[in-house]
């Protein structure tokens, strides 16, 4: 307080200068000859210093809430409560987000595996995927050159009727929806390519139905041995591998009417 200071200085009478010398002397004497008053002052200073250090240590070491009053504590508690409510709602929001993301990812994964399976199925049907499974291997020997494209077509149709899912001729020609037979007796062509005897037809499906579909009375096998005077061998196989592929031409006129995703 500087104002206070100057004020008092102004009030100081000039004759007090002489006693000031006495005061200093008194201080010097106090160092030399201590009295009872000094002892008491020492005790009290000791107490004050002790208490002061105690308080300073408490202030520094212990948590700041220890000296806080009830009102302050209530206020702090309110603040913490509202903060925790806010954080709680934030946690709930984030959990919701996580759930939605997770279920979205699940849906996406299911859809993707479904699509992959479908692509496989359609690829086998269209002849653009290799196929493997139980089935039959039919070997037709045609020593007299009487095997006609009509007979071949009939054989394929009968295999299809019996549930063949993938058919291959001579390990080389994949039979698909657009496959066609031409030529004459003894020089049958498939999709324009000549096939050489003996003709081997491999089909994947239920081997029993396929075998009986090819060999029922008056069917393909009978016609081969009867009309064409050839020999036929029907072997049931537990595993037939069809690895020839049909190269698909791009559709020139037909397009999907609507995308599958738009329909869902």
């Amino acid at each position: 307080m500087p104002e206070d200071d100057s004020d008092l200085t102004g009030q100081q009478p000039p004759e007090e200068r002489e006693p000031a010398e006495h005061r200093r002397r008194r201080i010097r004497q106090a160092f030399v000859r201590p009295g009872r008053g000094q002892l008491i002052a020492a005790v009290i200073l000791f107490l004050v210093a002790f208490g002061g250090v105690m308080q300073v240590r408490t202030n520094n070491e212990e948590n700041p809430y220890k000296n806080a009053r009830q009102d302050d504590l209530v206020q702090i508690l309110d603040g913490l409560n509202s903060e925790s409510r806010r954080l709680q709602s934030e946690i709930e929001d984030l959990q919701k987000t996580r759930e939605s993301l997770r279920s979205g990812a699940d849906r996406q994964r299911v859809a993707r595996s479904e699509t992959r399976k479908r692509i496989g199925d359609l690829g086998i049907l269209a002849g653009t995927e290799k196929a493997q499974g139980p089935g039959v291997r039919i070997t037709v020997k045609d020593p007299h050159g009487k095997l006609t494209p009509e007979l071949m077509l009939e054989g394929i149709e009968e295999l299809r009727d019996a549930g063949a899912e993938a058919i291959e001729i001579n390990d080389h020609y994949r039979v698909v929806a657009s496959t066609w037979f031409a030529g004459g007796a003894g020089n049958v062509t498939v999709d324009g390519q000549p096939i050489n005897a003996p003709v081997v037809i491999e089909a994947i499906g239920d081997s029993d139905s396929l075998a009986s579909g090819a060999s029922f009375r008056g069917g393909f096998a009978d016609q081969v041995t009867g009309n064409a005077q050839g020999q036929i061998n029907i072997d049931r196989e537990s595993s037939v591998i069809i690895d020839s592929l049909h190269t698909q031409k791009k559709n020139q006129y037909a397009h999907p009417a609507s995308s599958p995703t738009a329909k869902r």
Partner: protein
Amino acid sequence: MIPILGLIAGIILGLILEPGVPPFLQPYLPIAIVAAMDALFGAFRAYLEGTFTDKVFVVSFISNVLIAAAIVYVGDQIGVGSQLSTGVVVVLGIRIFTNAAAIRRALFHA
């Protein structure tokens, strides 16, 4: 000389013993310390002016400390504890400054 030794001894003991403040004293000790400082400065001023009496000193010291603590206590009871302790600290601070000014004037004529 002896009072200074007492001060130093108190600080050292406080540092060595690391005493904890008793819980019931905690709100009042800071105010009590400020009051004690006021009493000490007043005593030193009185000493320099030649009017020092040890009895007055002891009584004023104890009463200052007790009244300061009592004011804060009452304030706490009636719900204005923090305001009252601020007031007490302000008043004691003013007194300390006044005493310090008088001491300085007595010692240095300035």
